[in-house]
C-alpha cells in the first residue's frame, strides 16, 4: 500500500452547523505535494463540499492563507514532507470570522486597507509634459521590501493585538502606509496620519513581532510600524514646538 498522510480540516457550514468541527481525511502522500495539493485531492476525490480559497499555487496571489498546525502559512507553500508521519491540522486564519470551512470573511481588512490611502498622493500636480517623477535606486531601496506584500493576511492571523482589538488597523495596512510615506514621490503622509497615527493605528502595536516572522514574502511589518512610531513622534514634537506648521 502506498504511503498516506492524515489531514484534520476544520469544517463549518452555516446552513447546518452551529459551530466548527474537525473532519479527518486520509490522502496519498507525495514528496512534492503541498497542503493545497492535498486539499485539492480531497475536493476532487473525497469531498466536493470542502470550501477554501486559492488561485496561483505559487505564493504570489495571497489567497490560500490558512492555519496549519497552529502556524499561519500559505497552503501552497507548505510541503507535506515537513509533516511526514504526523497529522496536519488545517484551520482558517485566526482573528477573522469563518464564512465557510476554510474561507474567512475579510471585509474588515479591506476597509482598513482603504483607510490608510495606499496609493501615491503626489507632492504637487505636475503636467505630463514635465516628464517622469524620477527616483534614485537608493530612494527605491528605502521602501522596496514593503511593495512585496501580497495581502495574504498571515500577519493579521499571527498578531495577538488584532485578535484582542478588532479595530486595530493591523500590520499589512500599516506597512503599506509606511511604504507610501517613504516614497520620495509621495506627499500624502499627513493625509494618512489621521488613521496611521491614531490609537487604533501604530500605537495599538506592542511590537510582538509575529507579523514579520510569519510573512511569506519577507516583508517586515513590525519594522515599518516601529519606524512610523518614531516618525509620528517627531512630527508631533515638531507640531508642538512650531504650532504654525513645520511641514
Amino acid at each position: 500500500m502506498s504511503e498516506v498522510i492524515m489531514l484534520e480540516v476544520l469544517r463549518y457550514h452555516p446552513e447546518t452547523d452551529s459551530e466548527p468541527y474537525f473532519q479527518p481525511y486520509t490522502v496519498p502522500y507525495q514528496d512534492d505535494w503541498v497542503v493545497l495539493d492535498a486539499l485539492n485531492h480531497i475536493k476532487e476525490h473525497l469531498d466536493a463540499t470542502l470550501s477554501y480559497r486559492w488561485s496561483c499555487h505559487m505564493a504570489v496571489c495571497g489567497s490560500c492563507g490558512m492555519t496549519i498546525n497552529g502556524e499561519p502559512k500559505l497552503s501552497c507553500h507548505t510541503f507535506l514532507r515537513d509533516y511526514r508521519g504526523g497529522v496536519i491540522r488545517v484551520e482558517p486564519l485566526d482573528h477573522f470570522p469563518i464564512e465557510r470551512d476554510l474561507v474567512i470573511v475579510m471585509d474588515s481588512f479591506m476597509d482598513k486597507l482603504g483607510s490608510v490611502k495606499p496609493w501615491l498622493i503626489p507632492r504637487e500636480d505636475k503636467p505630463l509634459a514635465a516628464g517622469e517623477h524620477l527616483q534614485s535606486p537608493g530612494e527605491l531601496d528605502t521602501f522596496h521590501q514593503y511593495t512585496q506584500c501580497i495581502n495574504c493576511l498571515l500577519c493579521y492571523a499571527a498578531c495577538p493585538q488584532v485578535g484582542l482589538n478588532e479595530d486595530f488597523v493591523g500590520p499589512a495596512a500599516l506597512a503599506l502606509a509606511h511604504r507610501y510615506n517613504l516614497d520620495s514621490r509621495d506627499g500624502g503622509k499627513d493625509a494618512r496620519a489621521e488613521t496611521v497615527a491614531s490609537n487604533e493605528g501604530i500605537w495599538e502595536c506592542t511590537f510582538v513581532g509575529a507579523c514579520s516572522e510569519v510573512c511569506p514574502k519577507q516583508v517586515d511589518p513590525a519594522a515599518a510600524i516601529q519606524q512610523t512610531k518614531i516618525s509620528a513622534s517627531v512630527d508631533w514634537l515638531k507640531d508642538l514646538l512650531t504650532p504654525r506648521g513645520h511641514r
Partner: protein
Amino acid sequence: MSRRPYIRKVERSWWLQHPRYVHYMIRELTSLFVGLYCALLAVGLLRLSQGSAAWDGFVANLSSPLGISFQLLCLVFATYHSVTWFALTPKAMPLQVKDEPVPGIVIVGAHYVAWAAVSAVVLIGAGM
C-alpha cells in the same frame, strides 16, 4: 443561502500557544521591573528632599538583604529588556549612508557602546 459567519473567541491563554508569544510576554513582564526601579529612584529623590535622616533611612533600606535582592532582580530583568530591545533596534531605526543600508550589527553595536559609555560616566560620577 443565508450568511452566518462564525467568530472564534481569543482564549485567555493565547500567549501560551506559541513560544514567540511566551517570549513576548516575558519581555513585557520585564518592563514592569524597569518601571518599579524607576519608582524606587523617584522615592529616593523624595527622601533626599526630606533631609539627611530620611535619606540615610532610604540608603539603609537599599542596603538590607531585601533591598539588595530587589535591586538584583531589577538588574536581571532590566538587562534582559535592554538586550532584547537592542536586538530589535535595526528594525526600528534602519540607517542608510549614501544609498547603502548600514548593517544591523553596526546599529546594535552602537547601542552597546553608548550603554557602556553612559554606564562609565555614571560610575565615574558616583566616584567608583
